[in-house]
């Protein structure tokens, strides 16, 4: 055996502690079996923001020589296990400008395993995940995506449940006894050991064949080298926007073409235009300048740009006019206003079907005592 690489794909700062526990736990457990390992974050992701996809890695090897060959890398070129701790990441990730859209299974080896924490089934997730030429396994750990803040950790055992699934999906990494002894030593908590054990039994694994998945070709850019930079390191400004595409009026700003930001999103706003009073607040308060102004004076959130912060829902003064809904219930970034204009009744039905899937929103700290409460709910 040579080295085994695991990557954790997560949503930046609000899942950083959890990702660290997972990669650290992997190395500690492997050491119990006499292996060596290292856990590290991808340098380019720092400073991490909340929402924007980031990665941490755990590399495990039989001996120091093998490990050293793998650790001087910015990012492994292939991994045995990829772990996505938010199911919306299945649509692909764009961590930086010029990255383009990277499929969540991009680095997976043949017959490697993608683990996703989700409340959905494998069948529901596969249409989002980009097709791969090689077969791989999809392992599902049931549960809501766990978000907690920089300072207060939710500690709902999602990290332990991910670790617990590993001896099942990748027994060559380590076995359950090694993991349990590592958890006991590092976290000194029998409940955590129990959570890992339960997950070992409950994790569901399904084979994904090469022809299965999202057929879309992910967008990509060619990154300019330093020789193609202009004198004085000038970067050309974004041009002024112009009218709403296909219409004389309205306004759509030009946007940074090399970073779209929508893969930051786990939720997206849907707008009930029939309720909108055109008060301007969503448009004015969106930190990402997402709203295009329509020719008839509505505000249409541009789904290529929206990072799903939820500010527009929070500021809209009209009840149930802007609603944040689960982004995995969509397979495109189409504009909502044009859909509404074309068929208002159809739009109303569509809107209701999306709002039905509104998950209870928790992207982080709401109030003191919140995590204590949620911890009890999640650790069954």
């Amino acid at each position, binding site marked *: 055996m040579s080295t085994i690489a695991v990557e954790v794909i997560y949503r*930046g*700062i609000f899942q950083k502690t959890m990702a660290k526990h997972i990669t650290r736990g992997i190395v500690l457990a492997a050491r119990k079996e006499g292996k060596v390992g290292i856990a590290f974050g991808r340098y380019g992701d*720092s*400073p*991490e*923001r*909340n*929402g*924007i996809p980031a990665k941490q890695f755990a590399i495990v090897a039989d001996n120091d020589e093998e490990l050293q060959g793998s650790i001087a890398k910015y990012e492994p070129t292939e991994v045995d296990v990829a772990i996505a701790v938010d199911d919306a990441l299945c649509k692909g990730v764009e961590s*930086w*400008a*010029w990255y383009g859209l990277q499929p969540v299974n991009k680095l997976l080896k043949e017959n490697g395993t993608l683990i996703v924490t989700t409340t959905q089934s494998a069948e529901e997730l596969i249409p989002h995940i980009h097709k791969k030429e090689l077969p791989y396994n999809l392992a599902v750990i049931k549960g809501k995506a766990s978000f907690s*803040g*920089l*300072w*207060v950790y939710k500690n709902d055992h999602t990290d332990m449940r991910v670790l617990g699934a590993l001896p099942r999906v990748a027994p060559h990494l380590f076995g359950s006894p090694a993991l349990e002894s590592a958890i006991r030593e590092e976290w000194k908590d029998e409940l955590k050991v129990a959570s890992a054990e339960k997950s070992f039994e409950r994790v569901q694994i399904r084979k994904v064949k090469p022809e299965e998945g999202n057929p879309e070709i992910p967008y990509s850019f060619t*990154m*300019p080298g330093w020789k193609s930079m202009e004198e004085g390191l000038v*970067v*050309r*400004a*974004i041009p*002024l*926007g112009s009218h709403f595409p296909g219409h004389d009026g309205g*306004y759509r*700003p*030009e*946007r*940074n*073409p*090399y*970073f*779209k*930001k929508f893969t*930051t999103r786990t939720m997206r706003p849907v707008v009930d235009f029939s309720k909108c009073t055109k008060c*301007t*607040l969503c448009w*004015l*308060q969106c*930190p*990402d*300048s*997402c709203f295009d*102004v329509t020719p008839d004076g509505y505000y249409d959130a*541009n789904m290529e*740009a929206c990072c*799903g*912060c*939820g*500010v527009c*829902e*929070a500021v809209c003064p009209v009840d149930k006019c802007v609603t944040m809904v689960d982004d995995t219930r969509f397979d495109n970034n189409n504009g909502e206003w044009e859909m509404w204009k074309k068929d208002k009744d159809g739009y109303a039905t569509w809107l209701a079907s999306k709002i039905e899937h509104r998950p209870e*929103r*928790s*992207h*982080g*700290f*709401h*109030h*003191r005592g919140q995590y204590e409460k949620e911890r009890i709910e999640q650790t069954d």
Partner: protein
Amino acid sequence: METQASMDIQKLDSFKGVKRVTVEEYFTSGHRTCQGCESALVMKLMVKAAGPRTIVLGSTGCMYVANTTYYTTPWVVPWMHTQLGSSGSAGLGTAAGLKALMRKGKMKKEPINVIAFCGDGGGIDMGLSAISATLMHPQYNLLILCYDNESYANTDIQVSGASPWGANTTFSPPGKAHRIMHTRWKKNVAGMLAAGHPACRYVATVCASYALDMMNKVRKALSTGGPTFIHSLDPCPKGWDYDPMYSHELGELAIEAGIFPLYEVEEMKLKFYGKTKKIVEGRLKRRPVKDYLSRQGRFAHFTEEDIDYFQKKTDEMWEKWILPGVIPIQPEKDGGK
């Protein structure tokens, strides 16, 4: 010798209502800030208010690193990076440079807005002397806008002179023996700069939760001319630790609790705005600071005692300061009132 720069300024009237706000964006989408980053909103509103004939200088911090990710930009107007402590010098130098180029006929004569922004680390700590020096030069037109997210946020949340008492930061983690590791009260930067710079004709505080007020103060600062200063309080989901959808609400709560007063000092005349004005006039009761503190993870370690202390210090701002919310100095005889 010319002392006032009155001639070369743009006349930017207040936006009379949200419907009159410019539709164009000069800071657009595609920046790598956190979800719900209020400072990104400040950038957007700041240049929306200033208009297309504006040059922006930005000192190191989130609004440099996250916005202009490798060889791309969200800026529509010209923007240039400057050193962490140099917003004052870069702004002054740019304003002076424009003036010289126009005087020598190397550039068309036209009023161009110069805005230099800095974070609280860059402006309230490191670059304070350069800002102070710049505010002493009435012959140059520029606005320095400090976006205050109450920490060195870009480098993962270290304490700054603007961090609130008791907040959890990378440099002040609460421990078992010492719960409160940051024991200094927030620096009063707008009050200090307004009181101490006779050549500066406009200093204001803003919060992007009140977008119209904020944009109109930017417009007023730029139209007043000379060196001017605006201090903006920006909720930061990463450093303050809250769900990004609450950015707007936390800004409102800071004002309603009287923690951050909204005011301007124009030609040494003090004027309060919005909810702060109502508080000053006794028409609105301040909300308990607890409503603000308990919604942020950076204060999650606070006990009731800590909250009471925070409340007491906030009450003092309103009950004991000679100019409530602005200047704390009192004559000796009233010292103990």
